[in-house]
């Protein structure tokens, strides 16, 4: 006796959260069944393995049918085939678009192309996440990227509107899209200590301050703003950043800046002497990062540079976080007192964001 056909269709589509998780995690039906058996469900319910197998198959089939709709979540809301309560719909979507931290760190900042997709095998072996799950996550990134890439307006809002994700998840996706678009290098060894949260935090600051959308002129002049709003950095701004170079190139200015900072911080900093000794290096580092951002290649290395030029030197001198904060505050504020420096607004736009990023990046 073999079962040729075995289905269960409810007027309200039954969603088993546990099975959904197993499906999302990319387990095959038989793996899922044995995992469920191990969870002790048979003992709890008195069911047999055959029942479990049939149940799992059924759920997998349902999820497979739902997957097409999950690719465009608004469709899931409007479709008529599956009657699913709104709370369940939200859960389906949220879980489908959820990702593994380990996976996202592997692909963050990489081009979401076929080439990267080929590397998923390696990522799967490295992270222990099933290839199927890797593919789903990768395809999710790519799908979101494709949809919002060309879109105007707030990146987070766009994602939320088109994928109906929770605020938190939409923010993460915004970061992923932003990183993918600007191809920031995040995979270098020295960046391994950073979490997605760190990058997402930076991404948000950069989106708020460094992109075209941040300038806020778009609504008044929609035609001229053919560029993307939130995903691309403001090219003009990046060009202008070259002007900051005088802060380190002009020796007088550099000295003045240093003395202003040192005066203000004397006695307040535990690592004052180290700071004093390193000031010029640090300042050169920060300003050079800005000046280099005109080149795409250097934009990609932004985080590598920040860690190399600032985080690592400070860390090797064991600066406490609070001292870093005091220093960065004073460092950016003091520029306002440099009479010979004209690009105050530019400096603020640059440093305001950078200060936030650096503080977030500064940890072990």
């Amino acid at each position: 006796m073999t079962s040729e056909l075995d289905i269960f269709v409810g007027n309200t589509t039954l969603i088993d959260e546990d099975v959904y998780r197993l499906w999302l995690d990319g387990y095959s039906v038989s793996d899922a069944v044995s995992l469920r058996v191990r969870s002790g469900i048979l003992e709890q319910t008195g069911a047999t393995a055959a029942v479990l197998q049939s149940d799992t198959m059924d759920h997998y089939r349902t999820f497979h049918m739902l997957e097409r709709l999950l690719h465009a979540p608004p469709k899931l809301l409007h479709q008529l085939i599956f009657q699913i309560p709104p709370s369940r719909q939200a859960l389906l979507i949220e879980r489908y678009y959820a990702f593994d931290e380990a996976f996202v760190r592997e692909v963050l900042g990489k081009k979401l192309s076929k080439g990267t997709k080929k590397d998923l095998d390696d990522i799967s072996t490295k992270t222990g996440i099933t290839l199927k799950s890797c593919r789903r996550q990768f395809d999710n990134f790519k799908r979101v990227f494709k949809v919002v890439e060309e879109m105007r307006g707030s990146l987070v809002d766009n994602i939320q509107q088109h994928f109906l994700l929770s605020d938190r998840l939409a923010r993460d996706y915004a970061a992923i899209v932003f990183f993918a678009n600007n191809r920031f290098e995040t995979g270098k060894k020295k960046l391994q200590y950073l979490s997605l949260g760190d990058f997402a935090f930076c991404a948000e600051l950069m989106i708020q301050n460094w992109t075209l959308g941040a300038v806020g002129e778009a609504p008044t002049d929609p035609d001229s703003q053919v560029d993307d709003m939130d995903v691309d950095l403001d090219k003009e701004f990046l060009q202008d950043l070259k002007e900051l170079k005088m802060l380190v190139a002009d020796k007088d200015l550099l000295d003045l800046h240093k003395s202003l900072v040192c005066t203000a911080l004397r006695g307040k900093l535990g690592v004052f002497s180290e700071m004093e000794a390193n000031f010029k290096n640090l300042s050169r580092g920060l300003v050079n990062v800005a000046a280099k951002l005109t080149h795409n290649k250097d934009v990609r290395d932004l985080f590598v540079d920040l860690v190399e030029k600032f985080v690592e030197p400070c860390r090797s001198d064991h600066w406490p976080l609070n001292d870093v904060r005091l220093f960065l505050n004073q460092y950016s504020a003091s520029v306002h007192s440099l009479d010979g420096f004209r690009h105050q607004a530019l400096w603020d736009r640059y440093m305001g964001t950078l200060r936030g990023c650096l503080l977030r990046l500064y940890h072990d």
Partner: protein
Amino acid sequence: MPGKLKVKIVAGRHLPVMDRASDLTDAFVEVKFGNTTFKTDVYLKSLNPQWNSEWFKFEVDDEDLQDEPLQITVLDHDTYSANDAIGKVYIDIDPLLYSEAATVISGWFPIYDTIHGIRGEINVVVKVDLFNDLNRFRQSSCGVKFFCTTSIPKCYRAIIIHGFVEELVVNEDPEYQWIDRIRTPRASNEARQRLISLMSGELQRKIGLKVLEMRGNAVVGYLQCFDLEGESGLVVRAIGTACTLDKLSSPAAFLPACNSPSKEMKEIPFNEDPNPNTHSSGPSTPLKNQTYSFSPSKSYSRQSSSSDTDLSLTPKTGMGSGSAGKEGGPFKALLRQQTQSALEQREFPFFTLTAFPPGFLVHVGGVVSARSVKLLDRIHNPDEPETRDAWWAEIRQEIKSHAKALGCHAVVGYSESTSICEEVCILSASGTAAVLNPRFLQDGSVEGCLEQRLEENLPVGCGFCHIPYDELNMPFPAHLTYCYNCRKQKVPDVLFTTIDLPTDATVIGKGCLIQARLCRLKKKAQAEANATAISNLLPFMEYEVHTQLMNKLKLKGMNALFGLRIQITVGENMLMGLASATGVYLAALPTPGGIQIAGKTPNDGSYEQHISHMQKKINDTIAKNKELYEINPPEISEEIIGSPIPEPRQRSRLLRSQSESSDEVTELDLSHGKKDAFVLEIDDTDAMEDVHSLLTDVPPPSGFYSCNTEIMPGINNWTSEIQMFTSVRVIRLSSLNLTNQALNKNFNDLCENLLKSLYFKLRSMIPCCLCHVNFTVSLPEDELIQVTVTAVAITFDKNQALQTTKTHVEKSLQRASTDNEELLQFPLELCSDSLPSHPFPPAKATSVDYSSFADRCSNWIELIKLKAQTIRRGSIKTTVTVEKASPMGEGNFRNRSAPPCANSTVGVVKMTPLSFIPGAKITKYLGIINMFFIRETTSLREEGGVSGFLHAFIAEVFAMVRAHVAALGGNAVVSYIMKQCVFMENPNKNQAQCLINVSGDAVVFVRESELEVVSAQQPTANCQPSCTGGEVTT
């Protein structure tokens, strides 16, 4: 009488990509009705076209309106080649043809293609203007309402229940026409869908005409079926019960409907009179009188038995109103005569209802069934479907005479079915022989005079168990005892019925689903030899199924079966029998004896040990089941000590003994039934197998109950969560070990595993009950068995259930709540049917002045409140219990005029095979849903194999049903049934095809909780039913 059909195509969404180059679609729509077609403009390059068309107007006869479906085809415009069809929507506009149902159909419909399934949705608005209906020799029957529900629909009351209506139409099956060889599968499927739609429209219209002839205005328990006879054609047949229904709209009208129970039971003590009918002897079981006849189809001799046999039999003998209350003997006789004659005038005194107004059912005799094996041959002239008519007439005659033999003049819970394999067809009919109260069957009913005596109640809950036949001249040997409830009348030791448990029946403990399953191998044979072989097998199958049911019933410690449905399915090389019923313990019937096992060869020691071991196991199981189902009947010996028998009962007891003193004497030997142990002889392997199969049935896991009736006896505190589902399984038998035993085991396992799977899947709903569990077996191929189950899982409140296990309290609670329910019906209806004048004003103009309406409503409410309270005070039976019964009921009472508008879950459409929705009130019936779909694929593997294919299809069918209901403005389908699910596969060719036929009643319901929330200040909202669910989502 022409009407004007108006259609507007608004928009589409989620259309499929039809142009690969642009990834877009240039869609337009063809709207077709009859022979007229309109087209919209082409909406270029969009998957979400906004046509916003003008109103397309069709001027048509109402006959066509009834027959034809509105056909909407969505196409992709192609400049160079033929336009590609995207899909179709068929809309049955019947619900728009009677004034009380929907006024507009508006909403998103899935665009369906028989090859690709659902491909996007289309927003359509449909209206009908019916011109003045003059009711001359018309061919149409607009205005007759149809209900699938097999009881009087919740917001109506029955003035007269006229009786049986039937009709069948036949046609050639397009699938088997020569043209099918040259057309595409799509064209063939669509031709079939359209034809069946047309035929069911025609059938419904013809039935409607018969109803009008009988001067009824509605068909209740309407059951329409298709027989796919293959080469020989396509038969669409329907049966139903014609009624005159009245909307519960005025207090006066409402009063007799729900508050005159069992009065007549007393007036017509049938058991007193020796039954005048002559009894033929029949099989020795309460499952009475099966017949097996096989006649080659050509040799029938009836003459004019076309289904248009004159049925205008509305009895002319009106009851003399005002005199029925007298108790004089001659009058009784008169009454009896009239009942008899009222029913005998009818060709077939059958009722497809399974639940009845209180007092309707007087006595129940037992199950009557008849089967007949026929050979199919081509239907030569579709306009005269005489052969098929004659077949059915024959069977119905059979049923009628069986009922007579049981001393009954009517058959209730009647149904018909077929099973076809190649050219052999088994026709089956079954029902429950019963004695009915004439009051509902006649014009000019006697209501007027009965109201005063309402408070006198008979011993409730046992009247229907009393035997209708003469005990000296019993149709079959049965053990009769005095009723354990009233001790006045005789009752049988077990009772089998096809109806639902009457609401006033006294039940001890809970019920459970009982199934008997059986397979018998049969030699492959051709034509007549085959038919003869089947006819020969049938009696044995019937007998064994019955024995199994009896054994299982006893094993459960119960004594009655309700909702019994025996399905015999014929295949190439086997016959399958599946009987499902709900077992209960009726307080009125004797305690069932145990099961005794006896061996034939008692000298062998080890054998005897084995037997005693088995015996112990069986006894243990019985004990366990009694505990599980809480069956603890009170000890009989003592005279009503401390039993929670309510006051009225005692009084009526007194009354009875006065009027029927002759019965008082004989109160002896009540324990007789107890000694009647059931002996199972295990003398061969077959019997062993039987015993084993008895013990292998595992009870549902704790927290689960199941039954195949509407409600679970013993559970009445339903909570609102419901989940309707369909589950299908097909197994392939390995052809090697095809013995009867192996077959039985396979089939048994299949059913048991299926149930286990259901319990597992629905475990999150515990505590819950699977209600209306409906198994259907088919044998699509040699070695394939297909089982389809549709049921609904309903949650209930466990704590409350524990509190109310005392049966009597429970009973009265239930009754109180049903009464309450009915009390509450009319205010809800008040606004949708403004004045209580004509029951069904045809084609009433639908403009209503809402503002003045509000005032009127509130006045009405005041009036009703008064009336209702008087009623409540007047009915002693319920007043005591109402307080305890349900605070919910009281709550409802306060807020009875709440509108259905505040439905928060817009877009959700509930589906249920039951006639009600727990925790909610049905406020409006929008019309019948009867849909037929075909789905075919030539890429079976790509669609996920057979399971993937069928899973998707059933989900699509649900979606289309929901969409139609939502478009009618409804939010639920009740009495939903999947009548057919024919699945055929050809994995080698990567092909599969499936036909599904579903039906149900579209309704608007309002949650009781919402009734409470919304204050009574907005009764006008009632008048706008369309606001509940008109838009699904946009």
